[in-house]
């Protein structure tokens, strides 16, 4: 009986894994095919090996705009997450290590912010931005994503775990000011928290679709996902765009998978700290 239940458990897990991995495997196969093979060959078999030609077609389309989108995504998500994680960690650290009047009320506000649907703010944000005249600029997408209430919550939890009060007291009695204590003593200890929050933010921004869709008209400012979305829209009229979207999707997903697999430790730490409190 025992081996049977062991077999059942593992078979069930394998079935679930097939469900999660097969679509990605299909993407890999599909991006190696020419447009006609895409329609005529089975999904999980190779046709003529056309990957290089597909990548060339992606790079050539509209004067190489795909790589422009790539760069934009890296800027929005990479720089955005780096800046926002710093702001967030600093704020969470202050919530953890200092007392001030009305602190818990302010923290309640942060938690309320976690629950505000980002899509509910995106439209009014667009209208505000058009008043200020920053619609259809880099900043219209870059600045709103810097705010990450959930990260503040996470940073507060992680700060209480990573930074012992005694260490701060020791730094202070050595004559270090508050800011110096933070940058020289606390921040290095908070590095794992920083990386965790960075990863959270990075995915959130990389995934962001509604905000750029609302804010941007200029194709040259698009992030990858919005760009691929507009290509797909042309697929009905021009089937060759299907090929471009498939290969473009593969190119945009592979680096993400590599980064995440190498940083597993950090995102797992964040996910568990965020939910098992």
């Amino acid at each position, binding site marked *: 009986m025992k081996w049977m239940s062991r077999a059942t458990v593992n078979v069930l897990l394998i079935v679930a*894994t097939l469900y999660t991995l097969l679509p990605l495997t299909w993407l890999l196969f599909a991006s190696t095919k020419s447009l006609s093979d895409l329609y005529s060959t089975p999904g999980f078999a190779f046709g003529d090996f056309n990957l290089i030609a597909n990548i060339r077609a992606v790079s050539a389309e509209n004067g190489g705009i795909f790589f422009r989108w790539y760069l934009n995504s890296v800027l929005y998500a990479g720089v955005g997450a780096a800046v926002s994680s710093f702001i967030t960690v600093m704020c969470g650290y*202050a919530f953890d290590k200092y007392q001030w009047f009305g602190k818990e009320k302010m923290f309640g506000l942060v938690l309320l912010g976690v629950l505000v649907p980002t899509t509910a703010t995106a439209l009014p944000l667009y209208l505000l931005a058009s008043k200020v005249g920053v619609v259809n600029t880099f900043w219209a997408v870059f600045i709103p994503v810097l705010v990450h209430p959930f990260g503040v919550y996470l940073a507060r939890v992680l700060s209480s775990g990573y930074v012992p009060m005694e260490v701060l007291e020791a730094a202070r009695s050595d004559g270090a000011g508050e800011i110096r204590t933070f940058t020289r003593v606390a921040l290095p200890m908070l590095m794992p928290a920083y990386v965790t929050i960075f990863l959270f933010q990075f995915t959130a921004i990389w995934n962001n679709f509604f905000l750029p869709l609302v804010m941007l008209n200029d194709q040259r400012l698009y992030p990858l*996902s919005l760009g691929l*979305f507009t290509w797909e829209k042309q697929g009905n009229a021009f089937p060759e765009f299907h090929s471009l979207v498939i290969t473009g999707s593969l190119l945009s997903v592979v680096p993400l998978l590599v980064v995440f*697999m190498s940083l597993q430790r950090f995102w797992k730490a964040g996910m568990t700290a965020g939910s098992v409190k």
Partner: protein
Amino acid sequence: MTADTQARAPGEDWRRRGAILLFVGPFFALFAAVIVAPLAYAVYLSLFSEKSSGLGFGGAETVFVGLGNYLDTLADRAFTDGFLIILGYCLFYIPLMIGGALGLALLLDSGLARAKKFFQLALFMPHIVPGVIAGLIWLYLYLPGISPIVDLLGGVNFLGGDQVLGSVVNIALWEWVGYNMIIYFAALQAIPAEVLEAARMDGAGAIRTALSVKVPLIRGAVITTVLFTIIGSLQLFTEPMVLDNVSDGIVSTWTPNMYAYNEAFGNNDYGQAGAASIILALLAAVLSYVVTRWGNRR
């Protein structure tokens, strides 16, 4: 959670205050600009309406309509139908998602699973794929001619009016099941060994232990994920927008969020769009409150 600070010399106090301000200032300044101000502006906008006079050549004037936009929005079948779609979506999605993720986590935690690291990573992998890309991949897996599964299943029309809801649920499930599974698995791993030992001593089998000991013990994690799943479902936008292009089952006001988007950019009715956004935010707040309340009571 909070570390207590001790009494200190009053002379130092203003420096500390300055530091606190410096630490929390940037976040709250952005918070005010990016979350509070837009919400306030949406409330303001939602109280006004553009009434065009005559032929509409520069004749539009802004009139205060009080709660008029809210009443109009709530009376609009297109808007309320969107909530029915969300409701149907949740009825499919939440049990599948929570049940699936919990089931997988319990399987991994059962002590019988091999290659746990591999399974965790493989199940989580779709979550790394951005929502739009996930939507695009599945779009092709649903698209007759390109899809390897449509023919296999005897020509099912994944994009038809009756099936498309299930197709959207499937995309969301694919993206999120591994994510929630990891959260549950971590919670399960934190259950003390003595508790499980005691259950075994009482003669509980593996399945009994899973259902009556393990699941109740990770209730907190389950409630948190249900909460975030509901808030996420209310905002449903990306996946149907991607499928919209090829599916005749999805209209431009299919979900409340698509409705708001369409009011703003299709009809240029910012008052109505603002009202729809606020109704959505309020609903998210109320639901969160109810779910947390209900979770804490049990």
